[in-house]
Structure formats: C-alpha cells, structure tokens
C-alpha cells in the first residue's frame, strides 16, 4: 500500500453536516418520542453515523430527508428492540415519562397539556405512534410517511386514523 500526502481544508461544516443540522429538529422530534428523552441523543448520533457511512451510496432516488428519516426510524426501531430484550423495560418506561416531565419543565412548554399528549402518544402501539408522529408532529405527507416506513399509503392512513382515535379517547379521559 502506498500513501500520498494531502493538504485539504478542515471540514468544519461539510455540506452533509449542514444537511444533518438542517433536518435535525424534525429527526429529533421523531426519535424523541420513539426512544424517549434519555436515549434520543445516542440514537440520533448512531443514526447520523450510519448516514455518513452510507451517504456515498445515496443515489437521490428519494428526497434526502425521506432517506434520513428512514435511517433514523430504523435506528430507533433497533434501539427499541434492543431495550425490549432488557429486563428493566418497565423501569425504563417509567423513567421515560419522568424524563418527559423534566424536559417540558426545563424547556418552558406548557407542561400540563404537552405532557398529557406525550403520555398518550407513548401509550400508542409502535406502528400507530410512528405514523402519528410522522404525519401529525413532524408534518410529513402520507406519501412521504409511507416511503419512510416502506408500507402502502393506505396502511399509513389507517394507522394514523387509529392512532388519532386512540389519542382523542385517551385525552378525553384525561380531561374527564
């Protein structure tokens, strides 16, 4: 193996870095509600590292953000599967709710109403929760969400509808 010496600019902010920063808030909104506040940074770092590694193979067949969403979603699912194999899952779920509470106090949102919504979201099944977050919280279209989740558009619509129905029921119960 022969080596050459190169002088290249220090890549403080590469185009990929800028792209990741641009899309981070929305990716964070998804991961935050899938893996919980305590894991979101670790999972997102893992996801972004995956994105960096596979960026060279990104052919632009889909939008960058859809591609990135898929990576983040898959990384979250991996983490959830991993955590489900751990014996302390019940404690972790309890901790997640506490983390949500602490976060909402810390960042000044309306803790009462937001926490109720977060809690109701966290109680949805995984499929419905992801669909509701992608469409309702993040703002993807049904077609984009279907591409991210690799399921038909009708399936996304069904999951969103069921999830919203469950949310409304849960939030109605909270009010009562």
């Amino acid at each position: 193996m022969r080596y050459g010496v190169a002088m290249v600019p220090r890549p403080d902010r590469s185009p990929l870095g800028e792209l990741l920063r641009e899309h981070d808030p929305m990716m964070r909104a998804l991961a935050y509600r899938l893996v919980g506040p305590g894991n979101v940074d670790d999972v997102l770092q893992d996801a972004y590292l995956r994105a960096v590694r596979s960026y060279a193979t990104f052919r632009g067949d889909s939008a960058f953000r859809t591609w990135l969403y898929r990576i983040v979603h898959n990384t979250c699912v991996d983490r959830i599967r991993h955590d489900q194999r751990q014996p302390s899952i019940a404690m972790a779920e309890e901790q997640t709710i506490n983390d949500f509470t602490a976060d909402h106090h810390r960042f000044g949102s309306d803790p009462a109403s937001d926490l109720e919504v977060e809690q109701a979201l966290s109680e949805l099944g995984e499929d419905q929760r992801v669909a509701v977050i992608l469409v309702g919280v993040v703002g993807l279209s049904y077609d984009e969400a279907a591409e991210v989740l690799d399921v038909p558009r009708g399936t996304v619509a069904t999951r969103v509808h069921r999830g919203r129905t469950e949310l409304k029921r849960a939030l109605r119960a909270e009010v009562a």
Partner: protein
Amino acid sequence: MNNEELDAALRSLSTPPPRLGFWNVVDDAIAESELGDPIASGDDVVEGDDGVEGVEEDGAAENETDDQSPDDNVVVLLPTETERPPWHQRFGSQLTAVAASLVILIGFLWLLNTRPDTIDVAGQPGSAVDPEDLNPDLQPLDIETVGRSVVEIHPDVTPSVEPVFADINGDGADDAAMVVTGADASLAVVTVDGESGDVSPLASLPGDELGTFAVRPGRIIVTTTDAEMEFAVELVPVADVVTNLTVDRRRDNQISDWNIQIAGAGNLGLTPEVCEFAGEVMFEARTAAGTLVSIDGNSGQPYLLVDGPEGSFEGAITIETLDPFKAVGSFTAADDSVVGAVTQITIGGPGC
C-alpha cells in the same frame, strides 16, 4: 378534543435541543469520511522527492503556499494504490444479490402455483368452500342489517376482541361495538346500541354504560356497570359488511382528499391468505368519480379508505349486492347529502 385541537396539540409539541458536544462526533465522522476520498477533494496526486506521493491542490505544486491559512488545512495520508482484492471480494456482493434474486423469483413462482382457489369459511379453519357457494341469501344488505350479531365462532377458536366506540348506525351518537377477530383472521362486528334497538339484536345499552366485552367460544359476555349479560352467537357464514364511517380530515387540509374509515366490518368470508398482497389484505373499489376505495384488512380489521375531494362527514354505505368478489352500493352522509356512490367494490387486491 376534536380533530383541529388534536392537530394543534401535536404540532405544538416541543423537542429539546441536542446535548452539548453532540455534533462533534458527527462532524468527526464526516471529516474522516470525506478525507478518505482524495478524488472528492478535487486534488491531483503528485510524486514527491522522497518517493511518497503528495497531492497538488488546485494546480499548485506540493509545498507551494496558497491563500489559505495553515490553520485551515490538515495534512493527511491518503491511500493511492491498493492491492487487487481476490475475486470473491470483488464479486461477492454481486453474487449474493443474484442468488437472493433467484431465491425470491423461485419463491414467487411457487406461491403462484400454490395459491388456493377456494376460500376458508371464517371460523372453520381448514374447511374450504368454493367462492360461488358463499353468501347465497344475504342480498341485498342495507343499514338495517348492519351491526347484527354475526360473529361465527368455532368451538375450538377463542377469538380476540377489540372494543370500538363509534357511530355504527349513522344516528350521530356513538355506539358500542366490538370487532371480533378469530384465530383465522375471520372478522365480525357485534354492536350494542341504545339509540336504535332494531339495529342491535343484543341489548339496549348506551355505549358509555358498557363495561367490558368478553367472548367465549359460542358466547359473548357483556359486562355492564350493573349487570352481566350473556348472548349466544349466531352462525352466519358470510355476514354484513359495512358499519361505520368516520372522516379523517388531513392535516391542515393541505391535501385535497379525505379518508373514510369503517371502524368495523362484518365477515366477508375471506381470509388473508386469499387476498394477501405484499403483506396487506386489500379489498378495492371505485367510487362513481373513479377514486379508489380500499378496505385494508391489515392486522385483521377491515378498514374502508376512500380517497376523494376534501370533506368532513359521517355516514353509512349501503351494500346493495354482494358476492364473494364484488359488492355494489352507495354512500350516504349522515346529513342526508349523498357524498358519492360506491359503484363497485372488488374484493381482492392486485394479488388476488
């Protein structure tokens, strides 16, 4: 909480920013990735006096100064020549892909040859009947028949139950119902409605007074706040189709169409094996306007989704004719405005 309030609540959820130093790891990874690719930098590799190759930047010779500050540059060693990898490393991934494609193709052809021509009668696992023999006496169907106790439960099958509280009969009030899913994914809806006793054969109970549902083989037990009621279950091979419609108005109305969902449905006499396509159980239909209607039986509960112009309504579909592979009917909104006619429902998706 209505749809608009729920939309607003979801959109207003806040997410905390990344922790301190979060981006350092990512930036380092990006830097390593980009520095590992000399072509991407646009530089030319040049030979140095010491036999080690250097990289000429933008046409300038090695060691020649340019306008960049030294702090802006980093010196890295770049691989310029690699040993030729053995053949199995060069072609291994392609061979794997070809092998996987062959396996998928063979599996697909095998499935095509083994797809059953008959349909299992719900609740009777293993019993197959010709589709022509199904549903000889249940036409026409209308709202009067919707929601009757139509679940068929085989003595050996303990079905699962999902309670549903929705406007089953289109009278504007929520009814209590349950979607009963058999072990073979057979489906039925049983309703308990306090508003219109003729729709429900079970009891006259407001939905909100209901406690729990339980299903035992051949029996349905409804436990209310003050009584436990037990009902025998009818044996009906092919049952009612349509029960309830609710609208899922799209976010911000930016998408100019809507969904109608049937929150429960009768047993169509079909099993997922018959109509499974790409992992989904799909029943398709077309409205008079030519828009696609599909009943998504994914996870064992059929949902009717109608794509069409923007709107918000509740109502009911009347199925006028029904056979194992086609249903014809019309949709009427709860406010008496006809939203669209269902001209044909084709039971079975593209894979059926």
